[in-house]
C-alpha cells in the first residue's frame, strides 16, 4: 500500500522548546491514522507543518508523492481539513457556509450543488440548513465544521481533535461519519487525546509525547508492547495489608492497588486461558474476603502510554 503522507525527520522548535523532535510518520492510502498524545504533545503542530502553515526547522514532508509547500495548490485541492477550533462564518447560514468552503475547491456549479447537499445529508444538518451557526448547539456546530472541511470530497482528510467539547450523541455520529468517509475511499489523519476514540476508529496509531513518537502500530501491536494485561477491579472490598501481600503472590498478578475500598489487580499479559478472574475470586473466597461488584477490563492505549512514559495521557 502506497504512502499518502511521508514525514521524515521533522524538527520544529519554538525558541528553546523542541515541539517536534525528528518525527517520522508514514500515512498509508486508505487508512485511518490516529495521532494520539496528551495536550501539548505536538499533534496540532504536526498537522500545521503538514499543511505548510508552520515553518519547520528541519525535515521533509511529501503528500501524494510531492513536496508540500504553501503554494502547492495541486496538493491542497485534494486535502480536506477540520481544525480543532470551529471556523465558520456567523453571518452565513449552514448551507451557505458549506457552499462557500466547497466553492473554494469545486468550480463546477452543478457538481458543487450536489456535493453541498451530500455534505448536509452526511452530517445530518438538513433541518438546520437555513440556520446561522450561532443558533446551533455545540455538537451541531462541530458537525457543520466537519461538513465545511469535507464537502469537496478530498482524498486526504485531516481532522484535528474534532470531538472536543462535543456531547456523546454528536461524538458517536462524528466517529461513525469518519468511518464512512474512510469506507468511501478517503485516507484520514485523526488527532485526539481521547484514546477510546482512537482505539475505536483508527487502523494504525502513532503515540507522541513532547514531540517524540514513542510508539506506532495497530491497536493490538501497541498493546503487545507492554507487560500489563487484564485489569480486574473489585468494589466494596474489605481486605487487610497481609491479604494484599498474599494476593501479590498469586500467579500472573503484576500489580495490586487498593484505594479506599476499591481493589485494582493488574495481571501480566501471559496467556493463562482467561483464568485470572476465576483465580482472583477463588483467592477472595479462600481468604473469606467480603466483596461487591467485580469486573475485568482489557489493557487500553492509556496503559501503553502509562507504561512507556510513566504518566497518563490526560496528565
Amino acid at each position, binding site marked *: 500500500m502506497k504512502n499518502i503522507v511521508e514525514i521524515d525527520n521533522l524538527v520544529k522548535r519554538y525558541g528553546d522548546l523542541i515541539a517536534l523532535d525528528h518525527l517520522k510518520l508514514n500515512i498509508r492510502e486508505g487508512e485511518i491514522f490516529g495521532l494520539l498524545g496528551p495536550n501539548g504533545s505536538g499533534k496540532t503542530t504536526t498537522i500545521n507543518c503538514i499543511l505548510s502553515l*508552520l515553518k519547520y526547522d528541519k525535515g521533509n514532508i511529501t503528500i501524494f508523492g510531492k513536496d508540500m509547500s504553501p503554494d502547492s495548490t495541486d496538493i491542497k485541492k485534494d486535502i480536506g481539513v477540520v481544525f480543532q477550533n470551529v471556523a465558520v462564518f456567523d453571518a452565513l447560514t449552514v448551507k451557505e457556509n458549506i457552499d462557500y468552503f466547497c*466553492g473554494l475547491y469545486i468550480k463546477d456549479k452543478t457538481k458543487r450543488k450536489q456535493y453541498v447537499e451530500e455534505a448536509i445529508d452526511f452530517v445530518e444538518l438538513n433541518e438546520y440548513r437555513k440556520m446561522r451557526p450561532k443558533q446551533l448547539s455545540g455538537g451541531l456546530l462541530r458537525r457543520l465544521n466537519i461538513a465545511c472541511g469535507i464537502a469537496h470530497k478530498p482524498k486526504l482528510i485531516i481532522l484535528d481533535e474534532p470531538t472536543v467539547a462535543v456531547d456523546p450523541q454528536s461524538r458517536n455520529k462524528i466517529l461513525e461519519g469518519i468511518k464512512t468517509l474512510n469506507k468511501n475511499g478517503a485516507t484520514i489523519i485523526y488527532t485526539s487525546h481521547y484514546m477510546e476514540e482512537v482505539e475505536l476508529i483508527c487502523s494504525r496509531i502513532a503515540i507522541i509525547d513532547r514531540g517524540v513518537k514513542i510508539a506506532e502500530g495497530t491497536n493490538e501491536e501497541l498493546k503487545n508492547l507492554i507487560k500489563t494485561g487484564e485489569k480486574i477491579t473489585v468494589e466494596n472490598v474489605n481486605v487487610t495489608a497481609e491479604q494484599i501481600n498474599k494476593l501479590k503472590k498469586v500467579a500472573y498478578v503484576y500489580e495490586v492497588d487498593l484505594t479506599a475500598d476499591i481493589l485494582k489487580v493488574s495481571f501480566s499479559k501471559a496467556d493463562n486461558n482467561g483464568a485470572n478472574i476465576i483465580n482472583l475470586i477463588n483467592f477472595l473466597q479462600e481468604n473469606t474476603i467480603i466483596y461487591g461488584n467485580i469486573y475485568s477490563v482489557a489493557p487500553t492505549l492509556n496503559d501503553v502510554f502509562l507504561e512507556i512514559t510513566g504518566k497518563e495521557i490526560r496528565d
Partner: protein
Amino acid sequence: MKHLLKYNFLKTIRDKELVFWPLFFPIVLCTLFYFAFGSSIGQNSKVDIDVAVVYEDNTVLSEGFEDFLERIDENIHSKHMSEEEAREALLNEKVSGIYHVGDSNNGLLNVKLQVLGNGYTKTVLKGYLDGYKNYEGMIYQVMKTDPSKLPELIKDLDKQIEVINSKSLGGKPLDPTIQYFYALIAFASLSGAYFGTEIIFGIQANISDIAKRNSVTPINRMKFLVSSLLVSVAIHFINILILLSYITFVLKINLGSSIGYMILFALMGSFVGISGGMFVVSFGKGSINVKSAILTIGNLLLSFMAGLMVDGVKAFIEINYPIINRLNPATLITDAFYSIATYGSFEKLKVYLVTLTLEVLFFLMISFFNIRRKEYDSL
C-alpha cells in the same frame, strides 16, 4: 472570483457590527448634531447676532479680529465695549456673547468667548472664533517658517473669507456648525477601518481560524485579498453616500453643489478608512476585539483632532503641530468637504486628493508587506 465576491458581500452586509459602526452610528450622531444645533442649521436662513468685543488691559488694539468677524458673516454685528458694559449687555440679552481679546506670549491674540447658555448662537460664535484661530495659526506658521509667503497666504485667506461670505452654498453664507458634519463624514469614512479588520482576519492565518481554513485551500491569497477589498470598498462607499444623502435630503443640510467632488472624496474616504484599518490590524498578533478597540480609539482620536467634538482642537494643532493637520486623514476629509462647499477653484482639493491617495498607497503597501507570509513561526 465571482464566488468569493458573492460570499464576501453576503457576510459583510449581514454583519451587524459592520453595518452599525460605519453607517448607522454616524447617522445617529448626525441626527443628534442636528437637534443639538437647532433645525435651522445649514439652511442658510441665518439670524442676526450681536456680540460684544472687550479688549483686556494693555492689549495692543487690533482690528484684525473684529474685521475678521465682519467680513466672515454679515449677520454678525460686533460692538466694542468695556468689560462692565459687555457683561450688562449680555445679562440683558442685548448681545449674545462677549469676545475677550488679549495678547498671548507668542504675539498671537488670545481670544476667549463668553456666552450664556447653549444652542445655535453659541455654536456659531464658537465656530467663528475657531475659524479665526485657524487663520491666525496659519499666518503664524508662515511667519515662522517662510515670511516671504505671507502676502500670498493673506491673499488666499482673504479670498476664502470672501468666498465663505458670498459664494458658498449657492450664494448664502456658510454656517460654521456645518464643520461638525464634515468632521462626522470624516469619522464615518475612517470607520471603514472595521472592514479592513475583517479583510486581514480572513487572510492572516496566525490571527484567525477562518484565515487558517482559507489558507489550506487551493485559492491564492491575493484573490481573497482583492475580492474582500473590492466588496468592502463598494459597501463602505455606499455607506458614505447614504450618509451624505441623509444629511442633504433628510436633514436638509446643504453640503454644497459639487456632487462629483463629493462622490470622489466619499470614495477616497472609503479607501483611506479601509486601508488604514488593514494597516493597523496587519501588525502583530492579537484578538479581533483588541484590534477593533485600537481602531475605535484611533478613529475617535483622529476625528477629535479634525474637530468632531471640539472644533478649537484643529486650530490649536494648526498653530502648534501643523504637520498633523497636513497628514491626519480625518482633517483632510473634513477640509476637503469644507473646500467643496466654499471654494470656487477647488485648487486645494488636489492637495487633499494627492495626500489621501499617497496615504492609501502607503497603508496598502505596508499591509501587503505585513501579511506577505504564507508560513508562520507559530500559530
